């Protein structure tokens, strides 16, 4: 008993700070069960930094993870094109580096590539800021990007990004998609995307205003949640002065094509 009290005092001494205002410990009264409080610890681990503690506990709730997701990795019937839309992410719960790339490899290959810092700012929304680089279909363009990505009501994945380029160029891109579940493995994904530009960029056959709208409908089968082949339709249509430019060049203003591909992440 004496021994225990000594250790208790030692603990108090070790734990004590500048203020010596600790009251005498109150003893539990009228214990009706045979509960016996534990002896004070005989050995105390020396003070540790949070980092040391996390490493000793092997419990790191702020660890970073990396992932790569190909939402679309597909063959498009028209022009026999190969197209992709992918996202790579590395980071923790609140901050991450995100690489987005989307494009088509055909007679006129083109891609949109964005490197963004992604920060969780609200319950369902992340703020994303970084750079965008467009390649193909004319001279390359570089933009500063800022936007939001998140989950809208009714489980709609939504992205809205504003881009500012050189020579006073600006652009807006919106995208929304949703999964309709027929069974636990068979899902239909409707998708809508639209682009608008602040001014004409004739070298890239882009006119100011709403330039194009893309809609997709992809039916996938999830062999597991990481591997899902799909097929579907991909519709896109040009609008406004962009459509006029296409007509002038003898190109179609819109097309509907069959697609087949793979949705995969790892």
């Amino acid at each position, binding site marked *: 008993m004496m021994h225990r009290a000594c250790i208790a005092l030692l603990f108090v001494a070790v734990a004590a700070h500048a203020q010596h205002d600790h009251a005498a410990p*109150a003893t539990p009264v009228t*214990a009706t*069960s045979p*509960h016996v409080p534990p002896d*004070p610890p005989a050995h*105390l*681990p020396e003070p540790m930094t949070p980092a040391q503690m996390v490493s000793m506990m092997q419990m790191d709730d702020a660890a970073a993870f990396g992932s790569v997701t190909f939402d679309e990795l597909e063959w498009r019937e028209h022009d026999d094109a190969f197209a992709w839309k992918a996202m790579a992410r590395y980071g923790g719960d609140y901050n991450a580096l995100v690489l987005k790339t989307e494009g088509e490899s055909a007679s006129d290959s083109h891609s949109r590539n964005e490197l963004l810092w992604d920060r969780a700012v609200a319950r369902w929304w992340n703020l994303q800021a970084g750079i965008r680089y467009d390649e193909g279909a004319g001279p390359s363009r570089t933009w500063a990007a800022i936007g939001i990505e998140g989950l809208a009501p009714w489980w709609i994945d939504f992205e809205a990004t504003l881009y500012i380029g050189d020579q006073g160029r600006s652009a807006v891109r919106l995208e929304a998609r949703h999964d309709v579940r027929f*069974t636990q493995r068979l899902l239909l994904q409707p998708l809508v995307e639209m682009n608008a530009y602040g001014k004409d960029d004739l070298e890239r056959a882009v006119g100011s205003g709403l330039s194009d709208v893309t809609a997709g409908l992809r039916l996938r089968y999830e062999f597991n949640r990481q591997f899902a082949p799909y097929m579907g339709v991909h519709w896109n249509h040009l609008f406004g002065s962009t459509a006029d430019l296409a007509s002038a060049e003898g190109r179609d203003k819109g097309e509907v094509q069959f697609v087949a591909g793979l949705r995969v992440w790892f």
Partner: protein
Amino acid sequence: MIHSRRRFVQGVAGAAGLLVLPRFAMTALQAARGSVLSGTQFDLEIGELPVNYTGAARTAVAVNAQVPGPQLRWRQGEEVTIRVTNRLAVSTSIHWHGLIVPADMDGVPGISFHGIAPGETFTYRFRVNQSGTYWYHAHSRFQEQVGLYGSIVVEPRDGERHRADREHVLLLSDWTDRDPEQLYRALKVHPGIFNYGKRTVADFAHDVDTRGWSATMAERSMWNRMRMDPTDLADVSGHVYTYLINGQTPAGNWSATFGRGERVRLRIINGSSMTFFDVRIPGLQMTVVAADGQDVEPVSVDEFRISPAETYDVIVTPADDRPYTFFAQSMDRSGYARATLTPRPGLEAAVPAMDVRDTLSMADMGMTHGGMDHGAHAGHSMTMATHAPAEHGPGVDMTVDMPSTRLDDPGVGLRNNGRRVLTYADLHSLGGPIDARAPAREIELHLTGHMERFLWSFNGEKFSEAEPLRFRYGERLRIVLVNDSMMTHPIHLHGMWSEVESPDSAFQVRKHTVTVQPAQRLSYLVTADALGRWAYHCHLLYHMEAGMFREVIVAADAKVRA
């Protein structure tokens, strides 16, 4: 064929196909009856062990080359010495779950001690002052998930309160062939990945058909605007888990014998990492006599839910000369564990079909208007909740403004199922509280998280973001838990008992692990009579790793808010 056999072994298929035991199950059956170690001196060796539960060769972390580890049988009042040697390549630890031991013997690396380094032997020594059913498990990363757990039975100094002719320990667990690190990463990247019970277009059509268009749309609208999933009952499911009893798969069918008319005490321990089990023995009433090792007023039930880390002792009296199936289905009905109680070895009884998978209801959202579809309303109390600023940040996906106590709510999947289901309102510890003082202080903690980010916390702060909780040595305090999430969380305070209160603040039951249902507000009293540093966390292992953890410091000079 391989696939169907795998499903069968996991216990997701019915028992109709039970004709031939797979060979590996037979060998496992012979190998792992489990050993019992008793006395006061113990030598435990933690090492890797090749195992095969599903047809796939895997490596478990075992104690004395057994999964579960050997049962430790102690006597109340004795001092035990346990020398634990680490034969792994990584650090390890053993925590004595539910046993009140000195802080440096509690086995939490970084809090109680430094952990046990590879090749090192750590000696635990403490007096066992309590009796009952407990368990031990690793407190190092995912070692508990891969096999480092075992049962502890402490025989009371003056004999058991309830006479039994024989007793059996049933230790439930969840095994995965996948690397737990991979599972954790998968949950972080795509949190719904293991849920194969999501709502479909067909469910919608069915609901419209049975409930009508407007009622269905109103219900869907509510969930979909909140962006919450009413089918989100388990983060890790039978899709990747095989549920075990004493290390046996459902096909392995762990069996225990009884004599007709005998009183048989079953010590049931949930040693799983992520699985809530709903336990019943068709044809037998179970009389619950202890919860978390603490004797309770006996209560007879048909079924009870056991959360990870909880233990229940029940007494059954099989009257017929026939086998009975011990059936433990996971809360999300994605699989089950199964064992057999039989008068003679080799017999087995029918295995019931799993219940239909339930969905979360309005009650689970803290909304009582419209759809509180469980009958019991007695003992309810509703309180307006206020939330910490961090709960309105990006790390928390919902808050509950009107949580209710509803101790008498058996929980999702067990409401109105026609069986007598145990609830916390039925549990009354014998002998009263350990401390009759009224609490002088109250600490309110909200159980928070974000499903889409797979992030878990208290008050919107992960372990790495939060200051330790400070208890003043000797004080009696009230902890109020408000569950601001759509998941059920078993909350475990190390070193001190959690004495759960009834809605009118009367002592109810003494526990080491307290289950809090979605939108529930539950309180318990704690006597801070354990000096030192302690762990306090959700006992869903992947929630703990994701941040649902706090350190508690009990010190005489603790600066606490009144």
